[in-house]
C-alpha cells in the first residue's frame, strides 16, 4: 500500500511537471508522426503491402518514440539535483521505478492513441476492426519496453553520451518484446484473432511480469551509487 501511495505521489509530480514543461509528450508525438512520413517515402506503401508491413512499421515507430521518452525520463530530475533529493528521501526505490515506468507507459500510450489511427487514415487500411485489440497488444509491448527501459535509463544515467548508449544496450535485450509484439499484431491484422500467436502473447506477458518484478526488487541497487 505504501509502495502504491508513494508511486502515485511521484507519478502525480511527474505528470504535473510534464503539463508545465511540455518536454516529452510533444516531441515524442511529432517524432512518431514524422516517422510515418519517412516510412511512406522509404517503402512505397501500396494498400496491398501496407497491411503486411503495418505491424513492423508501427512498432518500430513506437520503439523510437519510446526511446526518446526514456532518454528524457530522468532529465527532469537533473536540474537542481532533484534526483538526489528523491534518493535521499525515505521512499521505497521500487516506487521510484514504478512511477517512472508508468509515466513512460502513459506517454507512449498517448502517442499511440493518436499515431495508430493516423496510420490507418494516411495509408487507408481497409478495416478499423482490429484496432482495439491492437492497442491492447501494443500496450503490453509498452509495459515490457518501459520496465526494462526504465532500469537501463537509470543504469546509464551517469554515463557519457547516455542518450546514444541507452538504445545500444536496450535494443538487444528488447528482442523478445519486439518479436512478440509484432507477431501478435501480425496475427490480429491478418486473421482478426491471435490463433497461432497465442504463445507469443504469453511470452510478452511473461516478460512484462518478470522484469516488473526484477525492477522493483533491483532498483535499490540501480540508483545506489
Amino acid at each position, binding site marked *: 500500500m505504501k509502495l502504491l501511495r508513494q508511486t502515485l505521489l511521484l507519478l502525480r509530480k511527474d505528470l504535473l511537471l510534464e503539463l508545465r514543461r511540455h518536454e516529452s509528450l510533444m516531441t515524442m508525438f511529432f517524432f512518431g508522426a514524422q516517422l510515418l512520413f519517412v516510412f511512406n517515402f522509404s517503402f512505397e506503401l501500396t494498400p496491398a503491402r501496407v497491411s503486411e508491413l503495418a505491424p513492423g512499421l508501427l512498432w518500430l515507430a513506437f520503439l523510437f518514440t519510446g526511446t526518446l521518452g526514456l532518454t528524457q525520463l530522468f532529465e527532469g530530475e537533473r536540474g537542481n539535483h532533484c534526483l538526489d533529493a528523491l534518493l535521499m528521501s525515505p521512499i521505497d526505490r521500487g516506487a521510484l521505478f514504478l512511477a517512472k515506468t508508468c509515466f513512460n507507459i502513459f506517454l507512449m500510450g498517448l502517442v499511440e492513441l493518436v499515431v495508430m489511427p493516423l496510420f490507418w487514415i494516411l495509408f487507408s487500411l481497409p478495416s478499423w476492426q482490429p484496432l482495439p485489440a491492437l492497442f491492447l497488444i501494443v500496450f503490453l509491448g509498452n509495459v515490457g519496453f518501459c520496465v526494462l527501459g526504465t532500469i*537501463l535509463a537509470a543504469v546509464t544515467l*551517469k554515463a557519457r553520451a547516455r542518450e546514444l548508449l541507452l538504445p545500444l544496450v536496450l535494443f538487444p535485450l528488447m528482442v523478445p518484446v519486439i518479436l512478440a509484439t509484432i507477431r501478435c499484431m501480425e496475427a490480429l491484422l491478418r486473421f482478426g484473432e491471435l490463433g497461432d500467436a497465442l504463445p507469443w502473447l504469453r511470452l510478452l506477458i511473461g516478460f512484462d511480469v518478470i522484469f516488473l518484478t526484477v525492477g522493483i526488487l533491483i532498483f535499490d541497487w540501480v540508483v545506489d551509487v
Partner: protein
Amino acid sequence: MPQVTGKKRKGILGAATLVFIIAGLYWGLVKAPPDAYQGDSQRIMYLHIPSILIAYLSFFLVFVGSCLYLWKREKRDDNLAYGAAEIGVLFTALTIVEGSIWGRPTWGVWWTWDARLTLTAILLLIFIGYLMLRALVEDESRAASSAAILGIIGFLDIPLIHMSVYWWRTLHQPPSILRPDKVPWENIHPELLTALAINFVAFVLLYFYMLSLRLRLGEMHEEIKARRMR
C-alpha cells in the same frame, strides 16, 4: 607438498592448455574422419561448438561476478565479471566468424537469419553494450555497479531471447533448407566425439587461462592505482 605459487599454477594451466589444443587440432584435423555429407568443412565444428559453450559460460560468470559484486562490493568480483565479459566478446565473435566460414560452403551464404546465428549475434551485441557501458561511466564504483545490473539483467533475459528467437524461426516460417539439421548423436563416429571432447577441454582450459591472466591484470591495475594515489 611444496607450495604452488600463483605464477606456477598459471604456468601449469598454460602448458596443459597448449597440450590439449595441439591434441585437439591433431584429432580434429587428422584423426577424425571427414563428415559423410559435409566433408572437411564440418571439422570447424570442433572449434565452433566449444566456442559457443564458452560464450555461454562467460555470460554465466558475468552474472555470478555481478551478483557477488552488488552483494559484497569487492573489487575482485567486479574484475571477474569484467574479465569474463571481455573474453566472452572474443569467443562470441569467434563463434560467429566460424559459423560464417562453415556456412559459406554448407549453406552457400556467409550469413543467414538462422535461429542460432541470430541468437549468437544478439549475445554479442549485449556483451558489447556491457563493455560500452563500462567504458562510458567515469566513476569507477558507479561503472562497476551499473555494469553489474546490466550483467544480471542480460543473463535473466537470455532464456526469453532464446525462446523468442527460436519461435520466430520455427513458428513463423516453415523450416527452410538452410536450417541446420540437429546433430544425430547416435549415428556419430566415436572419433568425432573424441575430437569434440578434447577440443572442449582445450577451450575450457584456454578460457580459464585467459581469465586468470585477466584477473591478474585487474589486480595489477589496483596495485598501480594504490601506488599512484595521492
